[in-house]
């Protein structure tokens, strides 16, 4: 089966200082060669710490940013190659839900208009038919018809996030980027939203890219998980594999650092801070903080090793395993 959305070796660099006559030019390498595909009805979780480039990947897929290299394919077609009406039709199929429902809703628009707007823009429905569609969508996201005439400030955080979801799904997209959809919510409300997203996916077969820094939330919400560090994916695996058998030293350190509600257990401490994406260490990006680093790690960037059943890891430790597996 071909993936709904595929990202091939995409790169996004931001200039932070232009320098003087080419000297002192600095570039922030936000996304530095990322590839993955998301199948129909699947949720791919993208985890990483702040500044690792996970939200930039989402924005590249949405077309909000233009990649400096590589391609973003929707059903095998490069959206950037399309123009005009055709592009608009294709883009309708990729929608987004942002983290902060407060700042991503227009405070002066009643909910009916906010949720109905995508229908109008895409020429799908107008007037009474649009209102009908909006009402059905609100019901599906757990809101009541009377919410149509309310404004965002009259709603709670959880309700606002339901509006954000309704707005994204009202045009019946195939793929939705969920950018930290529950990070601004309290745990009791977060659980409601996570359940809602799962149920909607089951009913309609949406594909999701679930971007989050919360490992437990990603574990709950995803089928497959990709771990990012400084602009690169360091490990990809099915949810079960990744949490039961994490391979990359960074994934392990990340999991060990999460304080868990349960018996006391010392937290795994990873030394140092995430380096600035302006000054990415040579070789393996993780080597200055890696407990397993050897001298070679600072020289060569490790290639991705495929260990069967879709478990991929970019670390020298696993390079010999690859060779042995080969016929």
């Amino acid at each position, binding site marked *: 089966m071909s993936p709904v959305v595929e990202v091939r070796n995409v790169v996004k660099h931001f200039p932070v200082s232009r320098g003087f006559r080419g000297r002192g030019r600095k570039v922030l390498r936000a996304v530095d060669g990322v590839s993955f595909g998301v199948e129909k009805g699947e949720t791919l979780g993208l985890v990483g710490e702040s500044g690792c480039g996970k939200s930039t990947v989402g924005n590249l897929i949405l077309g909000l940013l233009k990649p400096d290299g590589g391609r973003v394919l929707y059903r095998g077609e490069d959206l950037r190659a399309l123009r005009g009406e055709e592009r608009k039709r294709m883009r309708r199929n990729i929608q987004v839900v942002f983290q902060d429902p407060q700042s991503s809703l227009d405070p002066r628009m009643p909910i009916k208009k906010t949720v109905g707007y995508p229908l109008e823009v895409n020429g799908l429905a107008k007037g009474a038919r649009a209102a009908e569609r909006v009402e059905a969508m609100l019901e599906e996201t757990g809101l009541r018809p009377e919410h149509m005439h309310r404004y965002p400030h009259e709603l709670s955080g959880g309700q606002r996030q339901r509006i954000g979801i309704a707005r994204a799904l009202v045009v019946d997209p195939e793929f939705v980027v969920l950018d930290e959809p529950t990070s601004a919510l309290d*745990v*009791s409300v977060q*659980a409601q939203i996570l359940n809602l997203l*799962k149920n909607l996916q089951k009913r309609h077969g949406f594909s999701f890219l679930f971007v989050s820094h919360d*490992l437990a939330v990603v574990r709950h919400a995803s089928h497959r998980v990709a771990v990012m560090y400084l602009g690169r994916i360091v490990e990809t695996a099915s949810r079960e594999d990744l949490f039961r058998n994490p391979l990359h030293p960074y994934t392990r350190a990340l999991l060990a650092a999460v*304080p868990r*509600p349960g018996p006391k*257990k010392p937290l795994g401490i*990873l030394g140092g801070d995430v380096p600035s994406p302006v000054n990415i260490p040579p070789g393996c990006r993780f080597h200055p903080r890696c407990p397993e680093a050897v001298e070679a790690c600072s020289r060569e960037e490790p290639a991705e090793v495929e260990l069967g059943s879709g478990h991929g890891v970019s670390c020298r430790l696993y390079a010999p395993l690859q060779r042995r597996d080969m016929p």
Partner: protein
Amino acid sequence: MSEPLLSIENLSVRFFTYQGVVRALEGVSLHVEPGEVLGLVGETGCGKSVLARCVLRLVQDPPGRITGGRILFKGEDLLKASRKRLRQVRGNDISMIFQEPMTSLDPVFTVGNQMAEVVRLHQRVDRRTAAKICAGMLEQVRMPDPFAVLRKYPHELSGGMRQRVMIAMELSCNPALLVADEPTTALDVTVQAQVLAILDELTRKRGASVLFITHDLGVVAQLCNRATVMYAGRIVETAPVERLFDSPAHPYTKGLLEAVPTLEEDREELAAIPGMVPGLVEPPGGCRFHPRCGRVMPACSRRVPELFRVRPDHFVACHLYGAEA
């Protein structure tokens, strides 16, 4: 049991706003033992930060007013203390760490400047000695190259380093009580683990007590000795953490624990608590949790449940427990 270091009795706080009177805290009682880390958990708007600010009398009046109760620190009522006395208590005996270190540090002064100010306000030393004390403190929070950090401005440091500067500053005067309001919420997990380890080690070494405010149940489980759960301005449960996570008694605590996704178990559906946190202008009558509670009874909407002792160190405010249950 020894005399508690901090004891809050029946504290009530209201905010007088255009929207009405916000009953932020109603009849809240808790205590912190010497050398203990007490976790204060709850969702947004439950009053946990207001409670923290009350301890140092940092609630702005108007609109806020402490309308009743006592805050006893080593037996002295801080609500009756003079401004002068409060200035002595703040920093010397009780100090506070806030959530966002960037907004608690002054962007136009160097780290060394700000740290030395605190030191020299409380101890009579000259500049050079103050700088040495500051560097020593930074070393204790495992800051690499402390003298270089003293010359830097806050914006030159990462979030984790800023929070370590804050901790070093707060601990510089050897306070008996540290009030930490979500000190790791703005940090990444790996940095959070570093900061929690430092806090744990330093408080252990100095025997200081901590009132640790957070919404993260995982942090409570790993760092605290006891925990108090708040809901809508009231305390619903207090217990030692092992007990709280093993056998929570209050339906809200149970619901909260079941609503959190974990790294261990696979649950297809999370047990969400229906509805949302109520507003505090017109909170529900009786038990404030009753409109969302799965085990609601007629008494719940009529009477406010008192804190009931289910075990010597485990208290619950719920009509399921108590004399008539």
